[in-house]
């Protein structure tokens, strides 16, 4: 259930898949994204020309997207950006996309010192928006401030 916080910010219940807390400015991907072929490994930029967020930087952001898409190599690309430090700070998905779930879990196995939490938010997902300070809590809750800083 969505709850108001900080005056007009929101707090959503989520299901933690890869545990840990994270904080960053949110970026909502309006369409599903294939990491492989869709993200530049060297700097985390969206390089899929057909994607609405083409050209956006994902490094250090709390990425919010419905689910993944396309190539099954996405898991390795996600793990690699987490390893190399060009990955997102955390992921909020609407559905447990196996490709992305596996990417963060494999990264957690290999590189435990570089956590990238992933949570599933089924209810209230549409309330999340771009450009807001956003926190993922270890219990899976996602908090988003009303205004950008």
């Amino acid at each position, binding site marked *: 259930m969505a709850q108001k916080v900080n005056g007009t910010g929101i707090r959503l219940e989520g*299901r933690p*898949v890869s545990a840990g807390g994270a904080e960053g400015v949110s970026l909502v991907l309006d369409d*599903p994204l*294939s990491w*492989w*072929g*869709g993200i530049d*490994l060297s700097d985390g930029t969206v*390089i*899929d*020309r*057909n994607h609405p967020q083409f050209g956006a930087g994902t490094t250090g952001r709390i990425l919010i997207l419905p*689910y*993944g*898409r*396309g*190539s*099954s*190599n*996405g*898991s*390795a*690309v996600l*793990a*690699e950006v*987490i*390893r*190399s430090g060009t990955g997102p700070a955390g992921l909020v998905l609407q*559905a*447990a996309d*196996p*490709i992305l*779930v*596996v*990417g963060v*879990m*494999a*990264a957690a*196995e*290999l590189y435990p010192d570089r956590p990238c939490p992933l949570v*599933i938010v089924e209810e209230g997902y549409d309330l999340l928006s771009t450009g807001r300070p956003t926190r993922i809590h270890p219990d899976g809750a996602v908090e988003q401030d009303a205004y950008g800083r």
Partner: protein
Amino acid sequence: MALTLSPGDRAMLSGELGEADAMAMRLLAGLAEASGARRLIDISSAHIDGTLYLGRASLDYAARLRDLGGRVRVPTTLNVSSLDLLHPELFRGDDRTRRAARATMQAYVDMGGRPTWTCAPYQLPDRPGFGDRVAWGESNAVVFANSVLGARTIRFGDFVDIAAALTGRAPEIGLYLDENRRAGVRFDVSGIPEHARKTDEFFGVLGFLVGREAGMDVPVITGIESAAEDQMKVMGAAAASSGSVGMIHVVGVTPEADTLAEAAGGFEPRLVKVTADDLDAAYRALCSTAGRTTLRTVNLGTPHYSARQIARLDRLLDGRQIHEDVTLYVNTGRDVLRSAPRIPDLEALGVVFVVDTCTYVTRIIEPPADRKAAAMTDSAKWAYYAPGNLGLEVVFGSTADCVESAVAGRVIREIGPWRKR
């Protein structure tokens, strides 16, 4: 409903059967839990997608499992890698990448994978049968297995593919389950001229459109009388690139779609009537340039060309030499290359065969001096990914367009067959 692991699964998880099995089972159980699976099931074969070197993480994961003693429990084929081991000179990447890519390949071979290095494992002799539960990676192979063979697999990604091969287990989710194989969206193509519905480029463009429109629904296509395996392959690869599609029913063609009612499980799928305008728009979207630029390469065989497709190329080329300014690459599997006739004749005409990898996933194509130089392809999948991966401009066309262009040394592209009389 919570996940229940079998005694065998728990034994693996505990490390009783070795550390590699434990690591693999941690990933499988974690995915199963996250996805709401109730149990893991046995799988009878695996196809490993993680063989492509995408960075240190690719090698780290495979090498860790190998070093922990990992060994596959089911027959396992290996997908494309970053290198062509039969034509190593084609690779233009740096030596560090070459070494890491080679080490990644070796780790999978060490664990018992067959060095097939193809994205079209369904073109190998021992393919899964109807109803078999398998663990296949490579999105185009997943669509083919589910749709054409009637085997069952979810879209396995890197890491979890080898985890399934080592343990022989997979989470029972997605397309393993009857209820998730029902069509939720119907694409009716009966409004497209019949002669066009028989062409390969129709299937590629339709697949691209289906992938974009289907969302999370399983698509069913009505209005196609027949589809060759190569056409199903082209369509599936396109749909799995532009969307998350893991299965496509074609009424009257694919094994779980004798009727629309069977494909949809008695439900009424939402209807998309495909028009010539829709196909035109998709055809345009597959080109990043109008093609009034220098042509440098033509890329065929994504997914890997079959022997039939190579024979078709031979007929279309009809003994003509490829233009000196153009390289025509044909990506195929090493098994197909070994068995197909007339390969040396085609090579003499200037055709460059690439095996074990593909020109859109690794550095084979020389970066053009003229940044606007175009690459041409008959693959909607190649057209979809190449601009992002390689920074090239792409023109999609029929195989005949590609061949005529390669001979002429400039882009020649006809209108879509649905516009022809």
